[in-house]
């Protein structure tokens, strides 16, 4: 009926039906005039009005004994059992009987949805889907109508788990999870190229099967996918029931907001990213917390206006759930966080852009960027800054880095070379008298180089990671040589490089070159930078730390006091720079017999570190380590034990049982227990840690060895375990030099500690032998350990009655001490 006529009819009906029955005939005649058809229609409606069907009066009822949908028969198929049910259909496992016998998934569309339009669309869709041919897309075989009028289609039967369940059950790593998503991206690209959007991508629609032992994801349920319209990119159109359903959490913003226009390939990109986000963080990006029912405002805002948090931010904020998820990824939260930060955060953020014009254009682009991430290449999602590209280069070569010094040398040369290239570029600019820009560029270069060296290159070889005893030092030496004289024109760059080199030498325990570079950085900084310049403060901070390590606590403290004061003003009193300065200053103070200054600093800065860097941040744990040490000096064993125990719990869960800091805390805690004569408890603690380390890292890993040496300290006093002690000693004395370089600080400390034990076991000759090793290694580079070794050798000589030798060691000790003092 045309709208005008319908409107007219309705208006007339309204008028006529409200007039008394007796007058109606006359009213109708008057209203319709000569339009007989209209008059007839109106008369019929009024007739119905007086005699309505019962159906309009009684509310409809639900029939209790209707046959269930399961009883529907599909010719040619034997339905076996129900797999799943949704709002629109039921999926069964079925056996196709002919032309070939095979297991299929049979999807039966519920009746209420099978309007002619739906049926038409359904047929078209199934045809299109049947043409998809990709290993990661479940094949569609057949479609049709059952005798009872139900629409059905059959698909490849996938006996797999949802991608998230699969990844969690198998404890796949973040890398493996990403690898799993790449074929999914490719599959979606395949579908998009054939004009098919999925529109309901979610973990339960991506199943993983194992094919020749390898996981193979399969995208299923294009059931609600719709042929992409050419006009308007596939708007939902009139919502005849059964056309489409999405799942809110995985929906793109344009799916939740029709004003943004219809869907396109980028909507699937969004959903793919949601799934990846869930794989990596354990939660969907816009998932509201499970505990609270979201208000209307909240949901509206999240769906339409809010950007999801960065994946790493989400993981960081997740609390215990985050730890749990990290365990499911076979790692610890901090490690997973590091993996997410940077590229993956950017890739996900780009794919989850609310404005789809800023998203990846296609699943293929997303997949390509993920592949680039896996190969440590620069990703599209990031703007390529110098430091970023350098970082990528370093990551790509990390394997080689660990293998040997050559690659590392090349890499450092590469960095320096790059810098030189930048310097030349700068020269050209300078002649163009762009002094201001030069200064800015110089600052940027120095910042980027420092960041690159600190955070990436050297972090991967720093002793905190342990286990990497490559000739980092040689590589550093070569690189350091190249720095000489190359940066006369660019003091800021030279300061940054020398600060980093000095810091790295210090972390490797190689003090003389560390001090040399840092002293040079100090001189340059004093000449070229203002007293509050951040780069100057960083150089001074490192110098202070190195002086402390070199055994000059007072000098260290006088520098660090100033650094701390200025850092609080320049970086803020809650900044990581200030916290680091406070930590090193506290360490320097702690060297004096009076612990009060150290104690005051730790009392003030430990809470700040805890609240601003986090309770399990390495810096916080180092503070706790320091506090425990102070308690030990104060002979407050209970407090020390408590502090170590708490920090140890944090370190274990955040950094893992085999992280250097965890290990140091384990050792200190065990030491505290031994000092309070709880040998059994100490031994238990170390044995557990040692077992974990052996299992995860191997028996010959430095961490494992260090734990083993702690065990030695637990048992050597017990005369009943003499044999055990000897066996352990023999084993360790062979193993250690194989793992550590002859001048590795950890090895030297081990020689010294073991010598002390041997002395107590009255094995004087063996003790002397070990102490000699220490002295030989450090003769040219005096530091506190060598002084301790000389003192011990003097004592040993006394005990064995070698008076002459004792006097000789006394003299050597005094010379070395004087030399150490003279250095500063």
């Amino acid at each position, binding site marked *: 009926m045309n*709208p005008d006529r*319908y409107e007219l009819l*309705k208006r007339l*009906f*309204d008028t006529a*039906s409200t007039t008394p029955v007796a007058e109606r005939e006359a009213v109708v005649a008057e209203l319709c005039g000569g339009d007989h058809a209209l008059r007839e229609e109106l008369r019929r*409606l009024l007739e*119905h*009005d007086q005699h*309505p*069907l*019962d*159906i*309009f009066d*009684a*509310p*409809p*009822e*639900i*029939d*209790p004994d*209707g*046959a269930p*949908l399961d009883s529907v028969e599909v010719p040619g198929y034997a339905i076996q059992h129900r797999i799943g049910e*949704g*709002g629109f259909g039921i999926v069964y496992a079925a056996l196709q009987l002919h032309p070939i016998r095979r297991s299929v998934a049979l999807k039966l569309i*519920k*009746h*209420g949805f099978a*309007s*002619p339009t739906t*049926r038409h669309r359904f047929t078209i869709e199934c045809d299109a889907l049947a043409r998809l041919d990709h290993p990661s897309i479940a094949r569609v075989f057949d479609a049709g*109508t*059952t*005798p*009872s*009028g*139900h629409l059905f289609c059959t698909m490849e039967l996938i006996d797999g788990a949802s991608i998230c369940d699969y990844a969690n059950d198998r404890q796949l790593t973040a890398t493996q999870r990403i690898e799993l998503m790449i074929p999914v991206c490719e599959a979606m690209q395949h579908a998009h190229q054939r004009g098919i959007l999925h529109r309901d991508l979610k973990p339960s629609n991506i199943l993983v099967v194992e094919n020749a032992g390898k996981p193979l994801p399969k995208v299923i349920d294009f059931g609600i996918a719709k042929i992409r319209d050419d006009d308007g990119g596939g708007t*939902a159109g009139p*919502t005849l*029931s059964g*056309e*489409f*359903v*999405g*799942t*809110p959490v995985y*929906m793109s913003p344009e*799916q*939740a*907001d*029709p004003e943004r226009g219809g*869907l396109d390939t980028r909507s699937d990109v969004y959903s793919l990213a949601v799934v990846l986000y869930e794989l990596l963080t354990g939660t969907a990006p816009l998932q*509201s917390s*499970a505990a609270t029912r*979201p208000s*209307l405002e909240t*949901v*509206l805002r999240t*769906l339409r206006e809010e950007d999801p948090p960065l994946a790493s931010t989400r993981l960081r904020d997740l609390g215990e759930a985050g730890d749990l998820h990290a365990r499911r990824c076979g790692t610890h939260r901090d490690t997973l966080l590091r993996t997410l930060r940077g590229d993956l955060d950017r890739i996900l953020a780009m794919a989850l852009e609310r404005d789809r014009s800023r998203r990846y254009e296609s699943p293929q682009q997303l997949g390509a960027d993920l592949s680039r991430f896996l190969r440590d290449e620069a990703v599209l999602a990031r703007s390529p800054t110098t430091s970023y590209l350098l970082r990528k280069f370093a990551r790509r070569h990390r394997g080689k880095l660990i293998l040997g010094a050559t690659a590392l040398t090349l890499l450092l040369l590469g960095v320096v070379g790059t810098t030189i290239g930048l310097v030349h570029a700068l020269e050209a600019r300078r002649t163009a008298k762009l002094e201001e820009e030069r200064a800015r560029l110089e600052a940027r270069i120095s910042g980027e180089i420092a960041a690159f060296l600190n955070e990436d290159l050297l972090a991967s070889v720093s002793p905190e990671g342990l286990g990497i005893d490559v000739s980092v030092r040689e590589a550093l030496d070569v690189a350091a040589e190249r720095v000489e004289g190359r940066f006369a024109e660019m003091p800021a760059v030279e300061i940054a490089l020398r600060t980093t080199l000095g810091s790295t030498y210090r972390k490797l325990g190689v003090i003389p070159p560390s001090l040399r570079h840092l002293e040079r950085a100090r001189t340059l900084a004093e000449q070229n930078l203002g007293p509050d310049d951040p780069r100057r403060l960083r150089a001074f901070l490192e110098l202070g730390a190195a002086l402390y390590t070199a055994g000059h606590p007072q000098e260290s403290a006088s520098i660090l006091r100033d650094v701390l004061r200025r850092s609080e003003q320049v970086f803020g009193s809650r900044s990581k720079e200030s916290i680091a300065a406070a930590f090193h200053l506290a360490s320097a103070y702690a060297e004096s017999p009076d612990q009060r200054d150290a104690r005051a600093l730790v009392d003030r800065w430990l809470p700040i570190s805890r609240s601003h860097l986090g309770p399990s941040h390495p810096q916080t744990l180092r503070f706790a380590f320091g506090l425990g040490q102070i308690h030990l000096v104060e002979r407050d064993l209970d407090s020390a034990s408590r502090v170590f125990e708490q920090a140890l719990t944090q370190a274990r869960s955040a950094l893992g049982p085999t992280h250097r800091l965890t290990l140091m805390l384990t050792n200190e805690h065990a030491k505290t227990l031994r000092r309070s004569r709880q040998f059994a408890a100490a031994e238990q603690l170390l044995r557990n840690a040692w077992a974990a380390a052996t299992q995860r890292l191997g028996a010959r890993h430095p961490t494992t060895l260090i734990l083993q040496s702690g065990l030695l300290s637990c048992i050597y006093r017990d005369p009943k375990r003499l044999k055990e002690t000897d066996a352990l000693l023999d084993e360790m004395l062979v193993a250690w030099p194989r793992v550590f370089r002859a001048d590795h600080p950890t090895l030297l400390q081990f020689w010294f500690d073991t010598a002390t034990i041997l002395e107590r076991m009255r094995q004087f000759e063996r003790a002397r032998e070990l102490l000699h090793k220490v002295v030989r290694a450090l003769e040219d580079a005096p530091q506190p350990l060598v002084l301790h070794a000389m003192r011990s050798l003097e004592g040993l000589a006394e005990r064995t009655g070698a008076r002459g030798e004792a006097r000789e060691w006394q003299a050597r000790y005094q010379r070395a001490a004087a030399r150490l003092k003279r250095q500063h």
Partner: protein
Amino acid sequence: MPEDRVNGDLTAALHAASTGSAEAEEALFGIVYDDLRRMAKLRLARLQPGQTLQATALVHEAWLKIANGDKDWSGRAQFFGVVSRAMRNILVDDARRKASVKHGGGLARMSAESLAQPEREASPLEFLALHEALEDLERQDPRVAKVVMLRYFSGLGTGEIAGLLDLSERTVERDWRFARSWLQQRMTENGPPKLEGQAE
């Protein structure tokens, strides 16, 4: 699926649907449909012989569950819009199934008198005829069709419908009265309803 999860999904979907998005509404629809089905199954299992289950009672129950006693909650309009549609689909499902069981799925044996036969419960064919006529009305006059949906499938009163659709009560009353007659006329004109598999 645990109860709270269903409710959580439902609530979220409901909020999403209140953005006016057709697709979000479809998502909500799927959830509501499943939920109503589940509730119906539970109720039916507990019914005594001879007792019947009114669809509108089920809708009312669903509403109590979702609204949590908040009568002025702004999700009302979306909820009842979607729930009416879901209930209609459930009833159509049932009616089609019964019709195909009773009549072997064939039009041939369908007797014309079943339309006129007064029953306490509407016959499946009559219901299907109404369903088809309502589809016509939706195309002709969506607003009036909405009034019918809310009144017939959700069991809402004139006042409630007027509030939800922002109409006067008088308009709602007039719409319903006209629609009833129009649908009845349509059912007569359309003849027996189509059963799946036979049409086209």
